[in-house]
């Protein structure tokens, strides 16, 4: 027994290292290439330079795209959290006929709205509503795309929070606003944090929807702006793209850590006794 254990160990280790390297390499490339003066597709540390970042700083569209991405993802995040929590709360607490049907439809729709197949009707719809080339149009599509999933997850989360807390707060004399502010919201906020981050990350990386719906260069988000760093003949300018990609990941990390610090993820709840 001992023999086999020691015998297999080097192989397992080698395999693990291999897998580790496989996943680490792209990350290493992403942090090394932007600082390189002669960027290639290989991981190399040579002649550190900030030239790639300077090129981005000089590109107005690239900078505005940051602001646009924040507006789109932030807007979608707020809309999803506010509407999603209200909808999920009612679905969790109220009993009415047809509730089960609504939930099944939600689950069905969760992957439909922002899918590739829906792009044509979405374009038509936005065009009729005169929402082409507007941020609000994209935000609405983003929110509509993620809301079914969000409501479904949040409803499940809220189902797990015992009603007893709300009942106690009601008997203690809370007004509806106080009930929400002091009891329901704090109890649900970890679920809301999960949804907020998921929405942000999902929409931040969405390329198709803004690519189709937004015309003017001043309104495109980063995901679309990266596209500009291909030269006219379609050859990627690797240095600039990698630098831009690195910047592109930063807000996601910031949001993730900020929300997890402030609200904490994970589902708690339960009642003792």
């Amino acid at each position, binding site marked *: 027994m001992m023999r086999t254990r020691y015998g297999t160990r080097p192989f397992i280790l080698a395999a693990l290292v291999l897998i580790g390297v496989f996943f680490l390499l792209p990350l290493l490339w992403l942090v090394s290439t932007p600082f390189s003066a002669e960027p290639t597709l290989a991981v190399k540390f040579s002649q550190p330079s900030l030239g790639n970042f300077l090129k981005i700083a000089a590109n107005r569209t690239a900078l505005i795209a940051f602001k646009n991405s924040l507006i789109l993802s932030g807007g979608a995040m707020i809309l999803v959290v506010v509407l999603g929590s209200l909808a999920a709360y009612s679905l969790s607490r109220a009993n009415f006929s047809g509730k089960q049907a609504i939930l099944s439809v939600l689950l069905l729709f969760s992957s439909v709205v922002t899918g590739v197949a829906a792009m044509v009707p979405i374009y038509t719809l936005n065009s009729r509503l005169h929402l082409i080339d507007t941020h609000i149009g994209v935000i609405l599509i983003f929110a509509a795309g993620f809301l079914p999933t969000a409501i479904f997850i949040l409803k499940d989360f809220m189902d797990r929070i015992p009603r007893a*807390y709300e*009942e106690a707060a*009601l008997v203690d004399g*809370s*007004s509806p606003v106080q009930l929400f502010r002091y009891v329901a919201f*704090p109890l649900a906020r970890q679920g809301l944090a999960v949804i907020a981050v998921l929405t942000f990350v999902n929409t931040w990386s969405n390329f198709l929807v803004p690519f189709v719906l937004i015309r003017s260069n001043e309104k495109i988000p980063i995901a679309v702006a990266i596209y500009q760093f291909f030269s006219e003949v379609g050859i990627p300018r690797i240095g600039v793209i990698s630098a831009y990609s690195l910047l592109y990941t930063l807000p996601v990390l910031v949001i993730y850590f900020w929300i997890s610090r402030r609200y904490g993820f994970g589902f708690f709840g339960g009642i003792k006794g």
Partner: protein
Amino acid sequence: MAKLVFKDIHKQFGNHTALEGISVEIAEGEFFTLLGPSGCGKTTMLRLIAGLETADKGEIWIGDRDVTYLPPGQRKVAMVFQNYALYPHMTVAENISYPLVIKKTPGGRIQEKVKSVAERLSLKGLLQRMPSQLSGGQQQRVAVARAMVQDPLVYLFDEPLSNLDAKLRQEARRFLKRIQKETGITAVYVTHDQTEAMAMSDRVAVLKDGRLIQVASPETIYTEPADVFVAGFVGSLPMNLIEGKLEKEGRDLRFSAGEFSVGIDENIGLANGAKLTLGIRPEQVFFEPDSDGGRTRAVIDDVEQLGSEMTVSLSIGEVILLSRIPKSRPPKTGERVKLRFDKSGFHFFDECGNRIAGAKI
């Protein structure tokens, strides 16, 4: 400080009837206890008063207001929940002060109240803890404290002491009772512990399957139980209940059930041949060595020593009787003895189990 009135309240959950025709009037400042086995509808009654459930039929009045359809927050009641329902994201201090904070009580006043109630419920060292860091008994005391800082018209307690050890329970009982008497706030107290009900209440309501069986003072409940259910439920040991019938024997009436037989004075107004149930509290069953071969003989089945008392189980043929007597030389198992009763404590119940009024020796 208000009286509380139930007028013919019905409550149905699906096709299960939780409460049926409850009518009762609880006086201002009264300590009123709902006593009954698990599932009889005690919590449902409290939830109806608090406004967390709505009655299907009937009215509930608090003071001179009809509160039947009033939302919970406007009824001015404070409730201790059976499962405590402490806010998990607030500290103990925040939990206790929550009802005051949302009513915009001045900060100094809150501090003072929280401090005093925490002291009296031995919670002082725990004020900064989270509920999840407390034992069941500690959580329960926090729940009690959250109700006691308020100034409601009615207190509602749903088994608030069930998780405390004997000593703490005694203390908490006295504390609750004293606060309630000092403030004069009407209290509805739910328990399935009959000792607690007897010790604390001005009046007790015995509930069974959603119906009120008897509403009376603890004394009356004990001495004149309305039916066999109450008789069996109240008392530290259940009352001995023997089903049998009355038989005429010469000049005397005798009650007999199998081999068990006991003489009854004729003047209790019951007819010969009547089927009935005889109830005798264990404290009124005595026995002595069988010297002269008396009529009602029994065999000692089992002896349980309880400090200053002992509980002896006796069998007379099929009939089993419990006797609670002061501790003395313990009888031997299997010993034959002669029974003796304090007949003034005999209770008679008819075929349906209802007390036969006036059938008293």
